[in-house]
């Protein structure tokens, strides 16, 4: 059977549906398990719950302190996204649109950051954060994340800004507008897709990260969701219903965001590979 026959005769959607099932089944197990008692989960992991109950959610919410962790994650993510957007747009603007002798090498310095294994500098980062008094601080975590995401953001912004026509800011300059105003009221609105890509992918990366809170946060009240979930799973791992419920609670915000922004996320991810 040749490749060609295979493609022509095989119902393509069957293969695609198979992977869809592989993606969806674990998530289905997650959802139904939240509604079952632990005994039920052991007896029949895939079946529907005998009776609909939200007990697991209640006990997970109460015992895991998740409300607090969600707020922490939200603060850190929002802060990191805003800082990243503002400073990266500001840096990308002159680097991509002014004729500077040093623009290219500065851009290269930023781009190198996409490849740098920052995790391996965590010992020195820890020492630095300690010297700055930023251990155990959401603000400190925010700055670290913004710094790590800046290279990617500058890269995306510069790529989008480079292709805009020069006349855009020329006219405004003649009217006497300052550069900051030109950037934020003329250029940024035009590169809105870039803003969306940076915002979305920074959100995903920061919201899901586990490594930096692990080394920089000790206070239980300052833990972010992934860190809290890890501890919780380790501690209560035999109460499956409750652990699944805590996972479901931590998945909910990201899932909601995905349902709303799926198209932008798809295009953004595609662009990451295409922009070269």
């Amino acid at each position: 059977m040749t490749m060609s026959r295979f493609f022509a005769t095989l119902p393509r959607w069957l293969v695609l549906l198979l992977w869809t099932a592989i993606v969806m089944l674990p998530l289905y197990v997650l959802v139904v398990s939240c509604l079952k008692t632990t005994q039920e989960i052991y007896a029949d992991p895939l079946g529907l719950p005998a009776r609909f109950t939200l007990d697991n959610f209640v006990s997970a919410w109460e015992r895991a302190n998740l409300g607090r962790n969600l707020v922490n994650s939200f603060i850190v993510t929002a802060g990191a996204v805003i800082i990243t957007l503002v400073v990266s747009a500001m840096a990308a603007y002159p680097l991509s649109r002014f004729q500077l002798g040093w623009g290219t090498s500065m851009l290269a310095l930023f781009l190198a950051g996409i490849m740098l294994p920052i995790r391996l500098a965590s010992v020195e980062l820890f020492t630095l954060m300690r010297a700055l008094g930023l251990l155990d601080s959401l603000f400190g975590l925010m700055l670290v994340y913004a710094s790590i995401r800046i290279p990617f953001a500058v890269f995306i912004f510069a790529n989008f800004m480079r292709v805009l026509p020069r006349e855009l800011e020329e006219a405004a300059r003649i009217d006497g507008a300052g550069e900051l105003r030109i950037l934020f009221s003329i250029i940024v609105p035009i590169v809105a897709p870039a803003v969306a890509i940076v915002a979305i992918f920074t959100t995903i990366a920061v919201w899901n990260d586990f490594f930096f809170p692990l080394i920089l946060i000790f206070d239980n009240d300052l833990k972010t969701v992934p860190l809290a979930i890890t501890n919780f799973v380790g501690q209560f791992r035999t109460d499956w219903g409750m652990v699944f419920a805590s996972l479901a609670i931590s998945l909910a915000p990201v899932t909601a965001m995905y349902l709303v922004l799926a198209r932008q996320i798809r295009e953004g991810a595609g662009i990451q590979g295409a922009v070269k």
Partner: protein
Amino acid sequence: MSRHALALAFVLPALALYGLFVLYPLLTSLWGSLFQWRGLRQMGFIGLGNFVRLFEFPNSDRMFGALGHNVLWFVGIMVLQNGIGLFFAYLLFWSRKGAAFFQSVFFFPAMLSPVIVGALWRLLLAPNGAVEWGLNTLGLHEGRLTVLGDSQWALWMLIAIDAWNWMGLPVLIFTAGLRQISYEVFEAARLDGAGYGRMLFTIALPLLVPSISSVTTLSFINTFNQFDIVYVMQGVQGNPNYSTDTLVTWFYRLAFGAEGSVGITDIGLALALGTLLFLLLSVGSVLMLRGFDRLSVRP
């Protein structure tokens, strides 16, 4: 205010943050790897002493073990995630209907934190868990499922879970790449009687080189930074018997003192390992991008 001063003022906030929290720790780490450390104190300059220790017993076992696992992980991801991802992307390219829906579904797991993915699969793969139940019901397996506790299987399970987690990324990047190829090229080939298979190898692949290049480089960087899934699923020692140990989990144990739950750190060794990995990643990425650049077809 001159143009240069203005430009510098605009670049400065980003540069300051990036310089302080990324470049400075990295450079001091590289520098610190040349010193002896006692506990947390930096002592005298010892040149390459820490690097020599990396290659001596017992560290060499950990070093080559972890490095081997990272290499396997990379190979596994290239085949399982990126190979199959390319296949899916090609299928989606030909089925215009529903492509968006499938792309969204495939990419969804990438929204989830690796920590949560790890915890979820740990529950599913536990003895008496859902996967065991499914396999036993289908008659594919008997008794208790212990893949995660099996030193021959555990690493491959983790790689497969990682592929499940990130399958959507190559699919999206390759689909975007395929869409850039003009449809007429395929139409013309079709009229010449080329089948789907031949079109994939003669038309799509050569033109997809830039996409393949970025997917490979991204996978390379990500697999060599692998930590979260191992930490959550197998503990920081890469159990069982170090069979899932990676360079970053070992680095973490050295740096933060988690070897066998003992708070003994070896910062000198950790920084030397970090430096080596830094070199490996930067040199590797640059070579990769260059190599693919040569392969690129200039339209």
